[in-house]
C-alpha cells in the first residue's frame, strides 16, 4: 500500500545538483496541482559543504524538516544520507547512492568514513522501502547522478510522482541545452536498474 508522502528530503554535497533536483520535484508538484513548499539550506553550497533541501507537499506543509518527519529521502551521497537518520521514521522510503565524497576530515585521516554497507543493512532492517544504488553505469557524468537516482526513484512504491510527470517537469524546468542529457540520465535511471 502506498504511504502518503508529505515531505521529501534531498541530501548531498554542494555541487551535486540538489537545488536542481528540488526544482524538478517542485515543478512536478505544480503540474500535479499539489501545493508545494521548498526549503534549502546551502550556506556555502558551491564550496563542498552539506546541502539539504526539504519539500513539503500539501496545503500547510512547509519545506522545513523535523525529527521523524521525512517520508521520502533521496541521498546523493552516503555520508550525507546517514546524517539524515534523525529525520527518518519507520515508514520512510529511502533511495541513496554509493557515490562517496570524502570530506577533508576523512582525507586528512582525522575522521573515518562510515561503512556504507552496514548503514544500508541498518536502513533496510529499519524501513520498509530502501533502495541502495550500489553501482552506477560508467558513462554517466557524476553531475547527473541526481536525475539518475530520480529515475530509479520513480520505480519505488511510495514515490509521489509518475515518471511522465517528472519528464514533463524536466521539460519545464531544465534549460534547453541541458535537457537532453538530463532526460537521458533520468531514463537510464529507470531502465538500467530494471535489469
Amino acid at each position, binding site marked *: 500500500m502506498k504511504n502518503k508522502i508529505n515531505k521529501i528530503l534531498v541530501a548531498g554535497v554542494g555541487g551535486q545538483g540538489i537545488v536542481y533536483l528540488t526544482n524538478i520535484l517542485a515543478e512536478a508538484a505544480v503540474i500535479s496541482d499539489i501545493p508545494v513548499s521548498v526549503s534549502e539550506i546551502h550556506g556555502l553550497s558551491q564550496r563542498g*559543504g552539506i546541502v539539504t533541501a526539504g519539500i513539503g507537499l500539501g496545503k500547510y506543509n512547509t519545506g522545513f524538516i523535523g525529527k521523524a518527519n521525512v517520508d521520502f529521502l533521496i541521498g546523493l551521497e552516503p555520508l550525507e544520507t546517514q546524517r539524515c*537518520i534523525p529525520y527518518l521514521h519507520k515508514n520512510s522510503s529511502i533511495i541513496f547512492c554509493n557515490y562517496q565524497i570524502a570530506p577533508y576530515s576523512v582525507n586528512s585521516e582525522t575522521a573515518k568514513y562510515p561503512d556504507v554497507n552496514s548503514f544500508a543493512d541498518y536502513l533496510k532492517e529499519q524501513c520498509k522501502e530502501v533502495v541502495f544504488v550500489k553501482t552506477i553505469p560508467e558513462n554517466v557524468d557524476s553531475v547527473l547522478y541526481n536525475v539518475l537516482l530520480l529515475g530509479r526513484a520513480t520505480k519505488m512504491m511510495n514515490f509521489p510522482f509518475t515518471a511522465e510527470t517528472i519528464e514533463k517537469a524536466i521539460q519545464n524546468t531544465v534549460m534547453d541545452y541541458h535537457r537532453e542529457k538530463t532526460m537521458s540520465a533520468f531514463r537510464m535511471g529507470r531502465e538500467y536498474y530494471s535489469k
Partner: protein
Amino acid sequence: MLRQTIEILTSHSHPQKRCVMGNVAIARGAIEAGVNGVFAYPGTPSTEISEVFKYVNDFQNKSEHEEKYAEQTARKIYFEYSINEKIALEKAIAFSIGHKSTMCVMKNVGMNVASDALMSITYQTIMGSLVIVICDDPGCHSSSNEQDSRYWGPMASVPVFNPATPDEAKEMTKQAFLLSAELKLPVIVRTTTRVSHSRSVINYGKINYENHSAKFDRIPEHINIPARTATAHTRLLDKLKSKAVLNLLSENSKHLTLKNSPLERGNLTQFGIITSGVSTAYLNEILHHHTIEDKVNILSLGMIHPFPEQEVLNFLEKNLKKILVLEELDPFIENAVRTLAQKNKNKSEILGKGFSVLIPTGEFSIDIITKVLEDFLNISINKEENRILDNSENYIQNLPPRPPVLCSGCPHRATFYLLKLAIPREQGELLMCGDIGCFGLGALPPLKMIDTINHMGMSISMAQGLYEAFHHSQNGKKVVALLGDGTFFHSGLTSLVNAVYTRANILVVIFDNRTIGMTGHQSHPGASQHLPKYHEIEIAPLLKGMGIEVVETFNPFDIRDGFVKLNKAMSHKGVSVIISKAPCIFLPDFKEKTNKKMKIVVDENLCNTCANHEDVSLACSRGYAPKNNLSRARAKLFAEVSIAGEEQLCPANICNHGFFNSILEGDYKSAVEIVRDKMLFARTCGDICHRPCELFSLQKEAVPIKALKKFVSSIDENFHDFTLPKSRAKNSASLNKSVAIIGAGPAGLSAAYDLAQAGYSIEIFEKENKAGGMVTFAIPDFRMDKTGFDFEAMQLKEIGVKFHFNKSLGKDFTLEKLSDEFDSVILAIGMGKSKTLDVIEKNIPFEKRLDALSFLKAFNTKALPFRDDIESVVILIIGGGNSAIDAARSAKKLNPHNKVIVSCVESAETMPAFAEEVNHAIAEDIEFIHDSFVTECSVSSSKKIEINLHSFVKKEFLKKLECNYIITAIGQQSEQPVFEKIGKEKIDMQGRIKNDKGFSGYKNIFVAGDISSGNNMSVIGAIASGKKAAVGVRKLLENYQHDYEGEKALEKLNNTPLQLSPPNESFRTKWGETRVNVLSEGQNLGRALERFNLYQSCMKCNHCIDNFGCPAMVKVNGKIKIDYSRCTLCGLCIDVCPNNAIRWEIVER
C-alpha cells in the same frame, strides 16, 4: 534564467501560479508595484532579490530584446550593485527624491553600514516610493551576527513588514510601495533566511505600468538643518499614526481562521498564540499535521511597526488565560504585548522568551515549535504512527564533519599556499587579519592562515591597530591584512587611506578574484566583468596614487614570481600592498584559460612511495613532516641547487633524502636515527667517510651530507640515544639462527648490526683486543672521535652481539669449525698486512723502516719505535694512498719540526688519497714528490738513509734525498693461508676473495670488507659490503626476498674513480670542520640549507593534504587520486607535490 526573466516582467490579468523563492517573490512584488530602480549590495540571504534585477537590467538593455519583448522592455528598471550598502541607500534616496519608485536591498548587517542615511532621511522627505528590504539570518547560516533588524522600525521610525511566506512577502512588498508613496517615508520589508530561501507557489498578477517621470521639487524638506529637526521629528511620528498605516496594520493582523479552529467554531479556548514571520508557517504545519487546530487561538502579525496595538488588544480581550508569543530572535513583539497588557490592565499570562525551549538565539524549527506547543497546551503530540528509527544514535555519532572548503582551482587557495611558503607561520609569530568573503575559509584547516575575522572591511583597520598596539614591544613588526577585492571597494579603501596617513607598517594582501565571490559572482568597481556600462578602476594605480611605495601584482598560480614579490612587500617598512589577481573559477575568464586537452595525473610510483628501499619492513625513522612545515615544498620551488636523491645515494643505503629533510625541518634527532636505521656509525662517518654521496653528484654543488652527519651526531644527547635500534633488536622475533663473524672491523660490525636487529644471534671473533679494525688502528686519532666510535661499536653488545677478542683465525679456531658450528659465517678479516718494497727491505735496516699499518697502529697506541721528544727528523713516506697521507700527517703530528716527504708514483691528480686529506697535508707543510719511485737506497755513514728517486713516467733520475726514517705505504695484502680452503681460484690478484653478492661459493661462508674482491677499500665500502653480506646470509637462512638495497650506490663506489676536487668546499668548511659550537651555529641551519633541494619520492608524505587541501585530491589507500569531476585543471598541485608525482597528460580522444 532568460525564461524566468521574461516571466517576471510579464503582466497577467489572470493570476498565474509560479513556484518561486521568497526573494523572487519580493522582486515580483516590486515589479508589480511599478519599481523604477533598484540599488543593492549582495549578501546572503538577500542576494537573489538583487540578482533578479541584474538579469532584468541585462535583458532590457539588449537591443534585440526591445522588439521581440516589447512588453517586457517597455518600462526600463535601473539596477546597480553599489559599492556598499550606504552608497546603495543614499543613491536610492536620491532616486526617490527624483520622484522615481525605488527599492534598496541588503542583508542584515548591511543596514549597519547604511543606517546613517536611513536615520536622517526620515526627518526629511522622499518623493517616490522607497522600500528597503533587509534579510535577517537567525542561526547565522551565512552572516557574522544574527542581529534583529525589526528594531530599525522604532529606531528610525519607519513602518516594518515581517512576512511569513513567499506569498506574503510578495503582497507586503506591494503594500510597502504604496505606503511609502503615501507617507513619503522609507518602508522596511524584513525577512529571515527561511522566508527568503523558501520556495512556494505564488501568483504572478498585474504589473503597474504607471509612469513616474523624473522631477525635482525645490522644497525646504530637502535641506536638513538643526532648526527644522525638532518639528520634523514630530511630523515623522505623526506619519506613523496615519490612516493608511492603521488600515494596513489591521489588514495584516490575521486571526487564523483555520478549519475547525476555535474562532471558526465560536468556541474559544483559553490559549492564544501571537506569532509573526516564519513562526506562523511552523505553527500552521504542526497544528494541521497533528489535527490539533481546535486547541488554540492564533493572531498572526504581518506588520510589526508601528505596533498593531488595537488588533493585539482585541485579541488580549478575548479572555484568554495564557498568551504565548512566538517570534525568532529578540522579544520584540513580546515586549510590546507586555507593555500593552500592562497599560490596559489585562490579566492574561504572557509567555515568551524563557518559556519551554524558547530562547532569543538561533532559528526555530519544527522540533522546537512542537516542543513548545506540547508544553504550552500541556498535551503530548502523537508521534506513534511514524516512529524514529531504533538505535539511531549508533549511526549518527561521530560522523565525519564536512566543513566547506575552497573550490578546486580557487585562486584563494593558491594565494594562501604562496603565503604559507613565503611567510612561514611554523612558529606562528605573524598576525594575519582576515576579512569577510570566501577567502575566510583560509582560517580553517588545512590552510589556517587567518587569525582574525570580524565585520566587513575590518582587516586593514585590525592590522594597523594591532601594529600600533605592538609597535614598541615588537619593534614595529609588520602585521598582515587579508581581504577580497569586493571587500576592498566596499569598505577597505577608506581604512587603507588611514593606514597610509598614520604610517602603519602593514602588508595588505588583496585577494583579487575579479568578482564578489561568496554571494554569487557579482561585479564591482575593480572587476566590471566586461560590462561596457561600467568603468573599471584598476587597484594598483589607485594605491600608487595614494603614495604607497610597494604595490605588487601577481598571478598566484605563478608561485615563483609571487614568492619574490611577497618577500619584497614583506621587507618594505610602511604600507605595502600585494594584489593577487586571478579569476574565480566560476567566471568565464577562468574557464577560458583552462586547457581541456590536458588532464592531471598522479604517478602512483612516486606518490607516497619509498625510493630508498623496496623492503618496507626495513626501519625508517623519517617521520611525516610536522603539519605547517613546508621546507620540502619550499625547497622544491625556490632552492638554488636541485638534486635528485638518486644522485646522492649512500652505499650503506642511508636515506639521505630523509636525513637531509629532517634536518631542514629542524628534527636533528630523527636525522641521526635515519642514519642508524642502516648503520651504527653516524659520528664516525661524519668524521672520516669520504662521502661518495657528494662526490658522485653530477651537480656543481652537492648537499653536504657528511658535514651534516657530523653536525647532527655531535649533539651528544641524540648521539647517545640508541633506544630505537635496541628496541628493534629486542622486538624482532628470534630466528634461532646463529652467525659467526670473523673480524670486528666496520664490515663485520655492520653485518652484525643488521643481522642482530633481524633476529639472529651473532658472535664476533676478533684477533685484536678491541673492535674497530682499521678504523681503530689505522686511522690516526686526530682525524676522528675514537671514543665516539667505541661507543657506537659497543652498542652491539647491548643488542645481544657476543664478542670474542684476542681470537685469531688459524690460531684459535678454523674456518671449517665455525662453518660447522654456525648456520653461517661472514669472513671480514680485512687486509691486515702491509705490502713491502724489496729495495727497502734489502737495504735499510729494520729499525729505520716501517710499514704504514704498523706505524699508524704504534702511533695510535703510543708505542712508537722512535721517540718524539728529541730533535726533529726527516721521514720519507712511500705511497700515494690514504694510509700514506695518514702516516705523513701522523709523522708531522709527532713533532711539528719533523720534515715529512711523500713520494708517490702518481701525479697530484691521480693519487688515490682523498683530496681533502692531501689538502690538509699540504697545509701542514708536508712535501709531495709526485711521479717518483725509489731506485736505490742505502744508509750512510752518518746513519742517514740516502735515496735516489726516479721519475715514474720518464724513467730517469729525479733527485737524491736524505732521511732518518722511511715508511712504506703502498697498500695492504691479505693473510691468505687462513682461508686457503675456500680455493685458489677464488683468490684474486690482490689476494682478495671473489664472491657473488658476498657469497664465497664455499659452504655457508660469506665475505665482507677489504677481503671481498673488488670492494672499495674504505670505511663506507666496508660498511656497505658488511650489510650486503648480511642480506646474503638472510637470503640463505630465511629465504629473504630482497637484494641488498644499497647495491646501486655500492657498485658505483666500487667502479668509479673518485672526483678529486670536493664540490662544495666552502659549505663544508663552514659546517663541517669543527664540532665546537656547531650547535649554536646550527640554530639557523634549516634556512641556510634551504638553498638545497634533495628530492626523491617518499612514503612519509602528506604534504598536499596537510597544507593544500584541494577537494579534487583524494587519498585512497595511501595514494593521491584526482577526482576528475572536481578537478578544474588549475595545475597548481603539480607545483605543490614535493615528490614530483603529479604531471600533465594529454587527453586521448
